[in-house]
């Protein structure tokens, strides 16, 4: 309809004048819809049988845009209708296009028109390579004659070289354009496809002609100095090198092209050509280093020693990278990369001087990365160099490592330069950078950190000592940027050294230095960046503090002091949490002081919510490590009491909004942290924010209270019952009461439910009693009170799955009573769904829950009172299997795979399920055909490709475990309605039976997946075989 409307608005033009008017209108400023309509009409014209004639009529037009359209029409016609041309027609067409191209050049048509005509010629070559085998020689011949000739007429005694030498510069340039387009366009076709093999063969045969063309193109133009052809020759040469690399087995072409390297190197001498020449050599050296011969490398090495190179090098180090570029530096690095092994192993002066130049690139003027753009590529080279050193160190015999001292000298320079370069700029300079420059600066520092870790593999402790010395020197001189850089480098080595005590001597020099007194001074005494890096250093070396507890209180005091800082607060809190968690057992005596510290901070300011959670986690982890239970519970209650007050306040405020008083600090905790200046926060918002903030802190407490120690597990004995003593039980009851109350008051908040789930989960993994290790009955009671309408009910179902997992790991006595209550609840949630695909999370977690129950307690599943629930669930899971939602489908496939594997004997012998083989068999008699049908439906083309492997699992289990499976599957396979529409025509009944025979014979072996995949593909059709 839309097309019809368009045609009504813009009918096809009836004269050439109208076509020309349309083309002109296409390039005029017009609304997009008008342009789209014009384009549509012009494209229809191009595709019409009159297209050839149209192109011919317009190709000699005086206007470039119209000529361009004509050339484009030729390309379109060649691509669409070339099959209809006889050889004679095709030959005359070629003659014409060549003639038009030469004429366009002679007429002074725009370059874009002439280049488009070159593309038309190449399109011709792609379609008729057999009619135009020596395309370049023939084209040069035509250029010489000044007209198109039939390709068959090419029998001149003159060599291509002689013909090329007769061309004037414009014609030479045109021939080079054709050679460039030729290799670029042919290179886009598939080199491995037999269809294009003759095309590539003929292209390669043109290689020697390209060399003649480019050899002349590289020579300075004596005949017409106004037209330089070297730039075009470089572009063409690069395209042919790329092609030769991709084609990989074209030794004759490579040998021909190698003759052009020297002339191309000479282009460096021309300032205008420096950038493209450097780009060509950098690209070829980086990606195709074997293209160059030892003589080429020697020429390049000599070039790098010349005065010309010295001038470029100095400009690179001292000039502006933004204005001059870094082409020369990249060229040096590409050469270094190509010769890295030789350079590393050669102690000769030439190699050593070259490596010095490369390490010097790390010391260019300017800050990273905005001013100094060569540092990062240079660092990349040195990282490769270091990796090569490491490889050689381990592979070479010890006696053959004479190269190592030389290489290590360069490493020292590299490390020193990198250390200097990563120093932060002054704050005003940093502030003037855009975000990309700031990110790039940070990334470059990370690259340095990576490089240092590699160097550590070679240098070990001496590298740590090196930075420790730099650190202490900078500290003595109060040189803050150098001190920060040293601390950063030491931090980078933390992963390599921190858990090994042999480095402690060096590290103690750092951590016993006055630096940490400086950190403790008021903000402003030292730069913020230095404080940040210094605090980070404490966190990175937490294992050191575990071994040296004497430094720990001081370090933690520093961190606590920084918690209120808007910039340092987050990292400081993270460091506190990491450090306290790691060193919990040596900090137990400080628990009370830390709680007091936290109370004081809370009273004086509103902390960032995440920072507060981390501090609470840190304190809770110390509390957890207290051995004496009474003392532990005292500390716990003390911390919990702070949060409980917040809960009470939140509930109170929700009930009485009039209580809101933003002058009181307690209420300020409920302001939106991301937008503290938001106008007039409501009491409702404040109360929910206070509740959520404290809930998150409580979840952090639960996480902190998790036991970090690994206890021996006796697999044969029954886990002990987790009977909490009276005080602990009361505490648990209180926490649960608070959670339920908060959920009741803030029932619309999904986040509250999510946090409650996190709190429960923290307790599920514990093996010893604790405040968050709630009695199983209480947890079950909480779950069964939740309804379908409860916010985040899917998350609750997922938490219930985790709960079942924890029950299985605990005492058996708790398991049955909980499952008997939870199973009906979980299925009732599924029943409340309006459709199986209405809520992915509920479907997935509901199915997973039943799967978990069935895996160990089949008898609970088949209890008579559950029969209607069970019937619903089985049909529900089959509907899900038939559906389109991938995640529930995967859950259902997994359920059926597990369920089909169940044998009464595989469950616990003490369980009543042990003797329920008949029940299972009866169930499968009814369900088997349905499952088989659903699987066949999916694998017969309805499933997505990515689902096949998952769906193969229940299929394999069905075949292995049920003797009737073959009949069920046969019935489904022979029912055309089961397969994708169209599949029954593509896969005959015999083929389907053969498929069945194959998969049955495989008896669940892994090859089944491949057979199923082939069947799926056959059902879908050949067009789906595009991917292996």
């Amino acid at each position, binding site marked *: 309809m839309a097309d019809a409307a368009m045609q009504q608005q813009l009918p096809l033009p009836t004269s050439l004048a109208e076509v020309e008017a349309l083309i002109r209108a296409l390039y005029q400023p017009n609304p997009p819809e008008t342009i789209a309509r014009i384009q549509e009409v012009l494209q229809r014209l191009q595709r019409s049988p009159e297209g050839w004639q149209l192109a011919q009529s317009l190709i000699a037009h005086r206007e470039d845009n119209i000529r361009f359209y004509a050339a484009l029409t030729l390309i379109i016609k060649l691509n669409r209708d070339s099959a209809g041309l006889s050889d004679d027609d095709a030959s005359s067409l070629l003659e014409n296009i060549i003639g038009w191209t030469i004429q366009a050049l002679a007429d002074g048509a725009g370059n874009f028109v002439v280049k488009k005509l070159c593309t038309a010629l190449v399109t011709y070559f792609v379609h008729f390579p057999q009619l135009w085998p020596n395309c370049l020689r023939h084209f040069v011949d035509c250029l010489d004659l000044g007209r198109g000739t039939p390709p068959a007429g090419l029998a001149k005694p003159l060599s291509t070289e002689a013909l090329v030498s007769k061309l004037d510069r414009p014609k030479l340039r045109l021939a080079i354009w054709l050679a460039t387009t030729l290799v670029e366009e042919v290179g886009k076709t598939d080199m491995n496809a037999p269809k294009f093999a003759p095309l590539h063969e003929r292209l390669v045969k043109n290689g020697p002609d390209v060399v003649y063309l480019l050899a002349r193109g590289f020579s300075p133009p004596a005949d017409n100095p106004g037209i330089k052809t070297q730039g075009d020759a470089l572009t063409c040469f690069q395209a042919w090198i790329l092609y030769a*690399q991709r084609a990989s087995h074209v030794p004759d072409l490579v040998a021909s092209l190698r003759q052009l390297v020297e002339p191309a190197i000479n282009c460096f001498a021309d300032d205008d050509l420096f950038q493209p020449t450097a780009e060509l050599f950098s690209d070829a050296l980086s990606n195709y280093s074997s293209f160059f011969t030892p003589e080429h490398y020697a020429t390049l090495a000599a070039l790098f020693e010349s005065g010309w190179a010295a001038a470029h090098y100095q400009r690179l180090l001292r000039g502006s990278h933004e204005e001059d570029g870094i082409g020369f530096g990249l060229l040096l690095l590409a050469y270094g990369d190509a010769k890295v092994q030789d350079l590393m192993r050669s102690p000769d002066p030439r190699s050593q001087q070259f490596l010095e130049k490369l390490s010097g690139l790390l010391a260019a003027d300017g800050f990273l990365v905005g001013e100094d753009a060569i540092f990062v590529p240079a660092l990349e080279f040195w990282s490769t160099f270091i990796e090569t050193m490491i490889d050689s160190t381990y592979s070479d015999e010890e006696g053959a490592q004479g190269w190592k001292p030389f290489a290590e000298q360069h490493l020292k320079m590299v490390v020193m330069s990198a250390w200097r370069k990563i120093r932060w700029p002054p704050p005003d300079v940093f502030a003037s950078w855009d975000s990309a420059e700031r990110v790039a600066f940070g990334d470059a520092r*990370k690259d340095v950190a990576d490089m240092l870790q590699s160097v550590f593999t070679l240098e070990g402790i001496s590298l740590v000592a090196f930075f420790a010395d730099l650190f202490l020197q900078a500290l003595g001189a109060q040189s803050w940027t150098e001190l920060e850089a040293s601390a950063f480098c030491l931090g980078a080595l933390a992963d390599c050294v921190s858990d090994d005590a042999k480095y402690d001597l060096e590290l103690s020099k750092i951590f016993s230095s006055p630096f940490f007194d400086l950190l403790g001074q008021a903000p402003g005494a030292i730069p913020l960046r230095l404080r940040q890096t210094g605090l980070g250093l404490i966190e990175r070396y937490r294992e050191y503090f575990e071994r040296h507890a004497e430094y720990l209180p001081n370090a933690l005091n520093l961190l606590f002091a920084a918690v209120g800082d808007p910039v340092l607060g987050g990292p400081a809190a993270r460091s506190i949490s990491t450090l306290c968690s790691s060193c919990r057992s040596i900090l137990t005596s400080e628990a009370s002081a830390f709680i007091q510290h936290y109370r004081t901070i809370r009273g004086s300011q509103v902390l960032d919510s995440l920072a507060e959670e981390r501090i609470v986690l840190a304190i809770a982890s110390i509390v957890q490590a207290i051995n004496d239970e009474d003392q532990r519970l005292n500390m716990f209650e003390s911390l919990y009491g702070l949060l409980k007050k917040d809960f009470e306040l939140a509930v109170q405020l929700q009930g009485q909004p009039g209580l809101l008083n933003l002058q009181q600090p307690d209420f300020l905790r409920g302001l939106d942290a991301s937008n503290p200046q938001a106008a007039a926060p409501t009491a409702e918002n404040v109360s929910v924010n206070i509740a959520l903030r404290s809930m998150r802190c409580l979840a952090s407490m639960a996480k902190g209270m998790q036991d970090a120690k690994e206890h021996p597990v006796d697999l044969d004995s029954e886990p002990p019952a987790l009977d909490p003593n009276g005080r602990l039980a009361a505490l648990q009851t209180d926490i649960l009461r608070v959670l339920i109350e908060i959920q009741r008051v803030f029932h619309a908040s999904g986040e509250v439910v999510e946090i409650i789930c996190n709190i429960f989960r923290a307790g599920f993994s514990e093996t010893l009693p604790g405040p968050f290790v709630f009695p199983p009955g209480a947890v079950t009671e909480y779950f069964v009170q939740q309804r379908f309408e409860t916010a985040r009910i899917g998350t609750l179902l997922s938490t219930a799955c985790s709960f079942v997992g924890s029950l299985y790991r605990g005492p058996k006595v708790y398991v049955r009573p909980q499952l008997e209550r939870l199973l009906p609840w979980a299925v009732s949630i599924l029943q409340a769904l309006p459709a199986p695909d209405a809520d992915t999370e509920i479907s997935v977690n509901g199915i997973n829950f039943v799967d978990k129950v069935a895996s160990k307690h089949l008898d609970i599943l088949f209890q008579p009172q559950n029969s209607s629930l069970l019937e619903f669930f089985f049909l529900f899971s089959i509907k899900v299997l038939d559906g389109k939602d991938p995640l529930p489908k995967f859950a259902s496939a997994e359920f059926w795979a597990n369920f089909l594997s169940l044998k009464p004997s595989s469950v616990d012998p003490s369980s009543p399920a042990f003797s329920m083989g008949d029940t299972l068999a009866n169930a499968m008699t009814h369900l088997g055909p349905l499952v088989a049908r659903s699987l066949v439906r999916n694998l017969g083309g309805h499933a997505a*490709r990515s689902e096949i492997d998952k769906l193969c699992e229940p299929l394999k289990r069905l075949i292995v475990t049920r003797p009737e499976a073959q009949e069920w599957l046969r019935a489904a396979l022979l029912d055309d309605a089961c397969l994708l529409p169209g599949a029954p025509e593509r896969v005959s009944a015999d083929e389907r039976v053969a498929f069945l025979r194959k998969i049955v014979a495989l008896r669940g072996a892994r090859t089944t997946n491949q057979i199923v995949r082939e069947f799926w593909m056959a059902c879908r059709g050949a067009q789906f*075989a*595009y*991917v292996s």
Partner: protein
Amino acid sequence: MAAPNSYYDLYRHGSLGVALTDSLDELIGDERIDPQLAMKVLTQFDRVIAETLQEKVKARLTFKGSLDTYRFCDEVWTFLIRNVTFKLDNGAQTIQADKVKIVSCSSKKTEDK
């Protein structure tokens, strides 16, 4: 593995590649594209994902574990590591895994060096 002059197709098995293939299947099924185009899209995907991971992704992690098995065959390194702890770029966050298999292929084309 990949032909010498093309990119590895191993990222097609990642979640992005799998989702892309499913989407292409759907478009072919609806007759909105032909398989040749789908094949080109996947080839393009192979190139772009390899280049993007190499050039654009700056996030990094470190890991420690016990090296169980390693092999080097047909230019492919394979490492099986047990009890692995991954430490992410942002500092404190760690991820534990019992067993990790790392398959690494050269980022340089085979005829390059």
